[in-house]
């Protein structure tokens, strides 16, 4: 197998294997840890008989690999659960039932996912525009006042926690100036305009901080490229500075930008807890923190898997984009 198609196929197979490995590790880490799950699920006032019954319902007496096998089956083909009196069908991809309230984990995640995805992808567009733009400007005006000011701002951006920026934005924009209402999540399909207005501040606060990292990365990668021999070639052939910066130096920064972006998008899906909490967005991150607090293992495992899924997928997409940006990658 060779060429671009082969490369994409190989990468896709690798992604599936990685996802399987993650599922094993996550499952084992959470379910093999000590602690009486049945007792926690049943509550402190359960009698030993009730705890035993719960343990049976949850199949806690089965060996770990059998339980993992059922779990994997659930994801691929769906699974039936008996809740004592009735049998509930949980169709694929089934991540199990929550210990609290017996809701299906998949449903729970599907309810929260649009919020997190809205937040992350909107912020991504902003951080790419702001970050890469600032980086280009710094590389272009290197050694001058503009660059020094921009470097100072981005350094401050990297160092500022999201709750500081977010709070300040909210107090100024919503409180003092009253330009926007305090954010409240509205679904994209319900009202696209309200969706955007309400997410504007969360986007901004998440993006401003990430943008700082992108600005620094873009600047560094461009300056590195600018020191390379082929830039000297184009200078020696009278090619103007604008072309050298915009065409040749920026191209050299694509690969690291793609890589960083994949990482950030992947981890922000479940990791933007602070932003979600600050703006009251009912996303994955918030739900995960809640599930951890109440030791709702199926929810924790399901969410960690979904987050892992996004990180892996984001990186796989990045690898393919990488290969599009730099055709030499395919050869490796």
């Amino acid at each position, binding site marked *: 197998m060779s060429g671009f198609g082969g490369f994409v196929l190989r990468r896709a197979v690798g992604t599936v294997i990685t996802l399987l490995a993650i599922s094993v590790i996550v499952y084992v880490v959470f379910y093999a840890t000590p602690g009486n799950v049945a007792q926690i699920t049943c509550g402190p006032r359960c009698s030993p008989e009730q705890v035993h019954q719960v343990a049976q319902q949850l199949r806690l007496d089965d060996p770990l690999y059998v339980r993992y096998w059922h779990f994997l089956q659930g994801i691929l083909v769906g699974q039936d659960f008996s809740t004592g009196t009735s049998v509930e069908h949980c169709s694929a991809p089934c991540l199990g039932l929550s210990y609290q309230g017996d809701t299906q984990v998949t449903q729970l995640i599907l309810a929260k996912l649009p919020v997190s995805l809205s937040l992350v992808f909107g912020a991504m567009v902003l951080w790419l525009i702001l970050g890469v733009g600032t980086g280009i400007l710094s590389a272009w005006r290197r050694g001058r006042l503009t660059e020094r000011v921009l470097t100072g701002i981005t350094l401050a951006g990297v160092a500022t926690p999201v709750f500081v920026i977010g709070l300040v934005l909210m107090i100024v924009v919503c409180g003092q100036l009253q330009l926007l209402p305090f954010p409240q999540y509205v679904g994209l399909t319900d009202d696209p305009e309200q969706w955007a207005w309400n997410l504007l501040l969360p986007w901004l606060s998440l993006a401003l901080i990430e943008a700082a990292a992108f600005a620094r990365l873009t600047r560094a990668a461009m300056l590195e490229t600018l020191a390379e021999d082929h830039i000297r070639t184009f200078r020696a*052939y*009278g090619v103007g500075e604008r072309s050298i910066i915009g065409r*040749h130096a920026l191209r050299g920064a694509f690969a690291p930008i793609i890589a960083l972006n994949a990482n950030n998008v992947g981890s922000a899906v479940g990791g933007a807890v602070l932003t979600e909490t600050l703006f009251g967005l009912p996303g994955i991150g918030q739900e995960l923190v809640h599930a951890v607090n109440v030791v709702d293992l199926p929810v924790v495992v399901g969410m960690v898997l979904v987050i892992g899924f996004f990180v892996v997928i984001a990186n796989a997409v990045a690898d393919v984009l990488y290969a599009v940006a730099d055709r030499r990658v395919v050869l490796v």
Partner: protein
Amino acid sequence: MSLVEVTDLTVGFGSLRAVDGLSFRLEKGAALGLVGESGSGKSTVASALLGLHRGTGADVGGSVRVAGIDVQEAPDAELRRLRGGKAAMVFQDPLSSLDPYYAVGDQIAEVYRVHVKASRRAARARAVEVLDRVGIPDAARRARSRPHEFSGGMRQRALIAMALACEPDLLIADEPTTALDVTVQAQILDLLHTLREETGMGLLLVTHDVGVAAESVDEILVMRHGRAVEHGLVGAVLGAPAQAYTQELLGAVPRVDAPRTASAVTEEVVLEASGLRREFGRGKKAFVAVDDVSLTIHRGETLGIVGESGSGKTTLGRMLVGLLEPTAGEIKPGGGVRPDVQMVFQDPVSSLNPRRSVGESIADPLRAQGERDEGRIRGRVRELLERVGLEAAHYDRYPHEFSGGQRQRVGIARALAADPRVIVCDEPVSALDVTTQAQVVALLAELQRELGLALVFVAHDLAVVRQVSDRVAVMRRGRIVEYGPADEVYESPRDPYTKQLLAAVPALDPEVAAQRRTARRQLTAV
């Protein structure tokens, strides 16, 4: 008006004066060679002709006029018109000199459009035209390839094509063939020669290789420490150098036609290799680097292994030392004793650990042999340092405190530490200037005489190999194509590839160079 007028040029970087009061002229259509060792300031002069030091903080004095433009005084826009339009530059490393992300043809078209008002389509057509002109086969298709899809020689041709795109009056070539194999070097030099004949453009050739200059220019200017040492017609300067430094430089240049003074070769076999084969990779991607190579090495002799890049010579050397396992075949020490083979590497910078003192590096083989007595180790290392022409007190110094030649001496001392019978030298002098090169070669010969060492000298430079070798093996595509006493191989080569290699070696005499060029044309015409 001359094409290039340089008057009292000085270029300083901080406290360093790279060029110090240099003056020369180059007439239209003439060719001048700037020759010197590393640090002589020759490349700095080339950059100054295009005003490339502008805005870098370098301190430039004197005056430079190229094609009627005062490079120092010209406004940026005029300088950009000069660059590439009237004077074009070809650089040393053709891989890094092209943008890896864009197609070769597009890069040439981009440069063309900077200087000529043309549509994208017309610029692409021009790119294909010049690529075709420099001998890229199937230029229309190959113009869409990226640089990594080209071989080294093709990349250099592409850079020359870029230079030709705007029909400049002057071509500045900065070490244009240094990164290339000798046969490819000959092709590129021949191409430059033909292009000059056809277009009448002037050539300023910057090179460390006197032979390359002799092949290509009419006049030669020898530089040292930023100053002109000697300047004159190439035949006169190379035939009868007036200055002591030029004489020294020429004396150090290894000659492909000078036989070696015979060494004390014995019949005692120290190493015998038979049927050596080495593959890399598996399945369809398997690549045979060395294929069915058999050699015997005698005490006190030097076996030269010569070949171009990818010929398998380094892989062979590494197998002889035991750094690589052969896929098939065997290596036997002569007389049943342990072979004790050591290695001297090409790059004296990267083959020494920068964070350890050179004494510690030299002591490594001793410690590996189980020596634990610190006093004895220090004593032996001091002895070795002195043996290779350094000082015992250098024990505690670090690699960066030494020059390239000194570092290679450290490498030799390290190889000697284990008291070997055979030393494999992989391109031991190719990173060094010719005068340093001559000193290192002399040291190796001296050590060989005194210690009765057998040397395996792996190199791409045919002249150096001739200078040191008793017997020579010529490698191509993993096989030995010719193997015999050095004088025989060099004077009456039987294999066509050996003939081709020898014909490609630059000659120091311009007349011989012209004859060789004709001979090469006939060889390629066949």
